[in-house]
């Protein structure tokens, strides 16, 4: 008998079936991975498990007894802790407050701050963030640190089942390693772990069991390692799958004109004297550990930062980009796909159409009046181009699955036919199938003469997609990798600023083995 079981669970949202007769069984002391395309119902499944969503039908059995959770608090009491895809931290509260938000230690009926702080320190240490001060406000932490706090918070509840819904999607490789260690230790402490991720290598590294979801159903469950990656992906997307990354064109397009050129860009202490050029048709990656100034660099190019020094030239002409409005103007033609689609990219309650056409309204209108026919055509084109799965264009974009939301965000910017595309970790939370389409699209855009700057926290992407990678460290470019030089090893070592010698030394020692 499994430790925890779900049977025949269904959940509908209006006309959409998020889950249909799904089942799952979870064992103690094992890491159970859940895989599936965007919108397959993974998040809904774990929301049911953790009391956030009440299922329309189906039952849950824990240690042989049937259970029902009316609220997340109830699930918590039963020993289920969940790290949601959308962070559930309270930005204005301190890290310590967040960690023991639901059952703080008490002292005469009041919260015992000393004990709470101790708990927080312990939990942070276990979650791999011993350097986070428990009194910091969560809103003052960068995203990747918040993710650690989120894990610490779940751990502080002493759960028996711990669920991580894309908990690592915002983390850079170094942090991910720490999380692996934590999870493996928890497994050895006989916790049951559910792990959702779109990164195949994470699953290969961690999972004991895997369940694949498609269209709200569990399609297959298997022991990790018994299927090849291709087989798994085919299960997920229900069709054949090959070649994740499209082939890169041969090097030697030095002929193409330089579209974007930055020289001596500096901003506060976050960007230090950055210079580079991007040619039309080139995909230039930004590498390095998270938080080394990559995001700021993109924002700087897009006119968001005040007090930027240095020069930006477009097609050789010096330009001053004072605002995103200026950046998207047709003589500059820049587009930025921001990092956080929920607050920076999309207006979730607004319709798919309104979101898609938002950036391009200027050219879909005459004297400020929107031409609705032109708009509808343009929207339909984009939906087709990116194969966005949506039940009409009138529904709120927030009701799409994460991946489809991301597609809408990309499509929104393609609509202005940009010449320079800045991408800030655009594949976060996108499933493999969509990712593949995205990589193809990226290459198509490049082939059509666009210049692309692509920041990603996923090294595999940088390796697979980019013609060149600029590795940032401490706000400066530490190294430029071109073509075949872009390898995982090179990326990692330059990200850690170990330097070329160390890398070469490493290579030798590998060869020696």
């Amino acid at each position, binding site marked *: 008998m499994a430790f925890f079981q779900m049977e025949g669970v269904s959940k509908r949202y209006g006309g959409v079936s998020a889950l249909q007769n799904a089942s799952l069984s979870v064992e103690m002391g094992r890491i159970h991975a859940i895989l599936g395309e965007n919108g397959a119902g993974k998040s809904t499944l774990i929301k049911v498990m953790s009391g956030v969503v009440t299922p329309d039908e189906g039952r849950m059995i824990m240690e042989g007894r049937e259970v029902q959770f009316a609220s997340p608090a109830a699930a918590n009491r039963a020993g289920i802790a969940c790290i949601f895809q959308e962070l559930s931290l309270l930005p204005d509260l301190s890290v310590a407050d967040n960690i023991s938000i639901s059952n703080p230690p008490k002292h005469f009926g009041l919260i015992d701050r000393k004990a709470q702080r101790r708990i927080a320190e312990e939990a942070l240490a276990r979650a791999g963030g011993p350097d986070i001060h428990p009194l910091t406000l969560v809103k003052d932490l960068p995203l990747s640190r918040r993710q650690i706090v989120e894990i610490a918070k779940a751990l502080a509840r002493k759960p028996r089942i711990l669920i991580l819904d894309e908990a690592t999607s915002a983390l850079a490789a170094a942090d991910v390693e720490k999380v692996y260690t934590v999870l493996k230790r928890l497994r050895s402490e006989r916790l049951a772990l559910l792990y959702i991720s779109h990164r195949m290598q994470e699953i290969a590294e961690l999972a004991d069991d895997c369940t694949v979801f498609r269209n709200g159903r569990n399609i297959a469950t298997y022991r990790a390692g018994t299927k090849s990656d291709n087989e798994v992906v085919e299960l997920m997307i229900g069709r054949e799958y090959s070649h994740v990354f499209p082939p890169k064109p041969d090097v030697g397009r030095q002929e193409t004109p330089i579209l974007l050129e930055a020289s001596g860009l500096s901003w506060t202490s976050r960007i230090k004297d950055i210079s580079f050029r991007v040619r039309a048709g080139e995909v230039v990656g930004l590498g390095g550990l998270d938080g080394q100034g990559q995001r700021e660099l993109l924002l700087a190019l897009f006119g968001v930062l005040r007090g930027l020094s240095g020069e930006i030239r477009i097609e050789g002409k010096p330009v001053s980009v004072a605002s995103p*409005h200026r950046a998207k103007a047709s003589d500059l033609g820049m587009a930025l796909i921001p990092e956080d689609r929920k607050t920076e990219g999309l207006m979730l309650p607004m319709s798919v159409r309104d979101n898609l056409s938002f950036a391009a309204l200027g050219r879909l209108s005459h004297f400020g009046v929107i031409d609705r026919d032109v708009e509808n055509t343009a929207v339909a084109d984009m939906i087709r181009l990116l194969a966005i799965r949506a039940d009409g264009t009138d529904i709120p974009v927030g009701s799409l699955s994460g991946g489809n939301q991301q597609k809408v965000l990309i499509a929104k910017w393609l609509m202005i036919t940009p010449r320079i595309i800045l991408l800030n970790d655009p594949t976060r939370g996108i499933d493999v199938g969509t990712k593949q389409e995205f990589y193809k699209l990226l290459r198509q855009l490049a082939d059509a003469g666009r210049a692309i700057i692509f920041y990603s926290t996923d090294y595999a992407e940088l390796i697979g997609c980019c013609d060149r990678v600029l590795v940032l460290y401490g706000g400066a470019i530490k190294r430029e990798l071109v073509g075949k030089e872009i390898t995982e090893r090179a990326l990692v070592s330059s990200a850690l600023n170990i330097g070329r010698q160390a890398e070469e030394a490493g290579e030798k020692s590998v060869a020696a083995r």
Partner: protein
Amino acid sequence: MSIFAKSLIRHIDPAVAIAFGCIAALLLFGSFYSTSFISPAFLLQQLKVASFLGIIATGAMIVILLGQIDLSIPWLVAVGGMMSTAIVGWRSPMGEVLAIPFGVLCGVAFGLVNGFAVAYLRIPSMIITLAVNAVAQGLMVVHTGGFSPQDASSFAMRFLATGNSLLGIPNALLVWAAVGGGATFLLSRTVFGRAVYGIGNSERAVYLSGVRSQRIVMLAFALSGGLSAFGGVLLAGYASKAAQGMGDAYLLPAIAAVVLGGTSILGGRGTYLGTIAGVILITLLQSILSVMQIEEAGRQIIYGVVIILMLLLYGRERRVQ
């Protein structure tokens, strides 16, 4: 059923439909008290009076759609009325011509201050509009005390506010129809309108979409100020003169009307049709209560309870999740 009717049904917010249902219910209820409540004369009179609130609520709605609020309505209404009448006597007939635009422009000017502070100085609208309201009041007191202003409204103002046009339709109602039509067009068909809804949902996203969100916010407040002042201009026409306290009775009803009409106070969601329903509801409710012979205490209690009941009927937020 015709395709048109079907598409109409699909597009009408149920909240708005129920709001109109409430209007019918209110009239039915009133007609038990006196059949005059459903006489054309009474209804036209109500619509005429509702027009003033309607115009003011239009501005309030645009600001609410941004997720902001305009508490400077009372004294901007007064500014509109007092400034327009003050200019009437100036170098006649110039003053007569300039009266309405001047009154509205003064409101726009104050609105710009609100908007600038909210958009560029990032001061919460709830407090800056309160402060601007206080400043407007101060200026009007100085104005009244210092300049012995003219306060009789011009012929045009009286004509717009109290005259009747073809078929006995009050001009004020036509003015509201024009303003409402303009607002509907602005909100649903223009880049500005889209941006307003967008900002109400996420200003960050709007800014990063390369839309000058701050300018939009400032313009929206200017519009609201102008509409408040225009409401004041019409009120001055209606009463044939301006007075300091003329806007006091409009702040809370305007907000209540907008929200009763299904617009989310958090911004980003709502239709003008709903605001129309809300304005008529509030006006009718006030009128019916005013004419019924009960103690003021009782009226206030009924007024509050009825608004809550109507909101419970359809104004409920969707559940979290």
